[in-house]
């Protein structure tokens, strides 16, 4: 055991003295976590990094009535001051050009007659409501900004829904009165004006009409607020964990080629102790890496990782599963260079399959099944569950899966790695 530990600790020391290796072990994941934090607005004053801001739009209001201006007012309202950055112009082509030039997310063109198409003057004097010609708002969207264009669209739709509801509400009110013969047709215009005045003054029955949405979780803890870094930090840590273990495998082969492994074999240490020591060294390096990344990201970004008992179990489990893969890759390649290239490829593939690059990558069907062989998928799910208030029980399936991955990969690698493989040919 002492010889095994001695080899393992030597390798751990070597790994952390290699400045080039430290770039990818620690610097790169931290840089990417910070980068993702920056682009998600996690470090801005709004804090949580949940979305978009300052969407540039161009508004052309050709409508003569109050609804066109009401929509313009919505975009300029204090509620949307952080979300939308509107400008207005009178020239439609200018607005369209800004979208084509990719300087604006959308052009909102409110045509003439819009208000009249919803609240026609003639309707107020008619005995029944005529259906006026529909005049639509045109929203020209920039296809390179699909998400923010969708936000603009949803704002307009919400506005139109309210307008529609108010219009229909008014229509129904007076149609019902007429149908129930509570009023005469000649009374409608005066009643409508009085009704309109009272509605504008805020007499609205909707205040008490509500639907409450209650957020539920699987455990007693309240749902954690959205924090994009809590999602991405474990993903990046696990991505570069795979780099560390495949590099460890490459170094095992490099030692074989350099003859130092063979030198160990002619010492009193058995090949099991030697190989065990080498693999334990990879494991300890991987564990140290992921612990350092977690500690640093906690201190720097105030991340919450959840139940410490779960963490204590999850961290070695992911390190073991990843080490098993690194060992397996080393067992079937021929040279350290191959181990490096194939290892890097596996690192990236596992990363994308396992969710290290975020949730907007569509991993479904066969790809989702394939992701189950990666430490990344199980690890990220476990970290997320713990961060969301879960405990050891919730992550038991993840721990089990990671242990199985470790055992299977170690087993296969041990069979492939025989004593003869350890000596330079």
């Amino acid at each position, binding site marked *: 055991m002492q010889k095994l530990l001695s080899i393992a600790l030597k390798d751990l020391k070597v790994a952390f003295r290699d400045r080039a290796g430290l770039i990818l072990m620690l610097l790169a994941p931290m840089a990417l976590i910070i980068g993702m934090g920056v682009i998600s607005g996690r470090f801005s004053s709004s804090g949580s990094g949940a979305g978009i801001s300052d969407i540039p739009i161009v508004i052309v209001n050709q409508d003569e009535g109050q609804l066109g201006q009401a929509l313009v007012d919505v975009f300029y309202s204090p509620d949307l001051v952080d979300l939308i950055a509107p400008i207005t112009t009178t020239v439609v082509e200018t607005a369209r050009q800004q979208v*084509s030039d990719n300087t604006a997310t959308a052009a909102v063109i409110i045509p003439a007659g819009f208000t009249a198409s919803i609240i026609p003057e003639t309707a107020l004097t008619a005995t029944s409501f005529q259906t006026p010609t529909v005049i639509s708002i045109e929203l020209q969207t920039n296809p390179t900004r699909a998400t923010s264009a969708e936000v603009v669209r949803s704002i307009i739709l919400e506005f139109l829904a309210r307008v529609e509801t108010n219009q229909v509400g008014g229509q129904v009110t007076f149609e019902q009165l007429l149908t129930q013969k509570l009023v005469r047709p000649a009374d409608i215009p005066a009643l409508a004006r009085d009704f309109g005045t009272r509605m504008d003054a805020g007499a609205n029955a909707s205040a008490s009409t509500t639907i409450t949405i209650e957020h539920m979780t699987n455990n007693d803890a309240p749902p954690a607020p959205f924090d994009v870094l809590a999602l991405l930090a474990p993903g990046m840590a696990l991505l570069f964990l795979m780099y560390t273990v495949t590099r460890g495998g490459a170094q095992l082969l490099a030692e074989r080629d350099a003859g130092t492994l063979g030198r160990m074999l002619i010492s009193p240490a058995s090949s099991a102790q030697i190989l065990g020591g080498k693999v334990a060294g990879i494991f300890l390096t991987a564990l140290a890496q992921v612990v350092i990344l977690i500690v640093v990201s906690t201190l720097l970004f105030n991340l919450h990782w959840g139940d410490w008992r779960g963490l204590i179990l999850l961290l070695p489990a992911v390190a073991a599963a990843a080490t098993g893969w690194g060992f397996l890759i080393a067992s079937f390649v021929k040279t350290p260079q191959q181990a490096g290239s194939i290892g890097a490829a596996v690192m990236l593939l596992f990363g994308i399959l396992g969710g290290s690059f975020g949730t907007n990558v569509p991993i479904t069907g066969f790809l989702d099944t394939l992701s189950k062989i990666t430490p990344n998928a199980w690890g990220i799910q476990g970290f997320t569950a713990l961060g969301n208030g879960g405990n050891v029980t919730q992550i038991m399936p993840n721990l089990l899966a990671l242990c199985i991955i470790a055992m299977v990969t170690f087993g296969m690698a041990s069979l492939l790695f025989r004593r003869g493989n350890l000596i330079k040919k």
Partner: protein
Amino acid sequence: MRKIIAIAWKDALINFASPSSLLFFFVLPVVFTFIIGGGFGGATASQDTRAKLLVVDQAGTASSQQLIDLLGQSTALSIEPMPWAEANATFDADDAPALLIIPAGFNSTAMISGTAQLQLKQQPNNLDAVLIERTLNTTASQITSAIAAAQTAVAEAERIRPFTSPAERQAYFDAALKHTTQLLAQAPSRLNVTKPSQIAPDFNPAAQASAGQLITWVFIPLLGISAMFAYERRNGTLRRVLTTPASRAQLLLGTIFGQFVTALVQMGLLIGFGAVVMRLNWGQSPLALIVLLSSFALAGVSLGTMLGTFVRSEGQANGLSILLGQVMALLGGCWYPLELFPAPVRTVVQVLPTTWAMQGLSNVLQLGAELPAVLPNIAVLLGFAAVFFVIGVARFRFE
């Protein structure tokens, strides 16, 4: 020229000496493009990319059905009604971002009395779940607005003549609500969403994801030219070249030219793969595409040359290439679109060549931009190339 070509060819032979080099040159970029671009045929308009919402209707009321119908009309999400046990299992298996439970007692009376409740389970830190919640809020307010309109009708009627009994009032309310709901369902769309006229009708949004991957996977090996210089320095071949009649300029140009041509070939293969296998539309202006990507390749190889003057070993060079390449690709909008970035960040990242390349490529692919429209991007990329090249050459150590 012959010496420059000889140097470039020698580098190509070294770069592709091992079959595993094809992994990063072609295989991985193609796999990533395939996965992110949504498989064969890409994410076409007919494919459902909406967020999935599981719905458990425990109420079985007109209100719950109205809610389900309205949610079903949404373009942002697709709903899947199912029993509780199945929905819960699906949610726990992480197969849906959110689960909506409409509990028993969800009806208009509860809404009026303020006790109507919906229960929503969301996967943690999931952007689709956030979108679903936003849509649900909008839909819920649509329903309450209809009820409010019916209440207004009742209130107006009561002002003119009070109802004789609660039953009469209820009947009036029900009729008004039914009428309101009918009219709302028949309401015309008053929003016409259009795209700029130069957009191709068969545009495929997966091309955007492919563009980001192309930039990422080409950029990293271009930075990796720094490792080539470190290798030659360690190997002694750099010194040896300097004792031949080949000049230092020829050596630098040959190395850079080789990497540049390799990058062009790589981009050509990836674009070809995307076009033929994934049926992606790479825009209507091949000239704009070629000039833009060539400028980008020059900027990348020049940056790699400059990087090579700061590193001491191949290990450092390779590590820094991957680190800088990934970070610059991320910040340049290659992984997540720039529109998602905070406004100050959108400004700051303009210092990166990847940002200009990605924006230019997006303009060509999605806005149908022709060469004149992307000339600013090309000019900036060539400017980057010039600056990096000058610094790299000035600092270059041949020993």
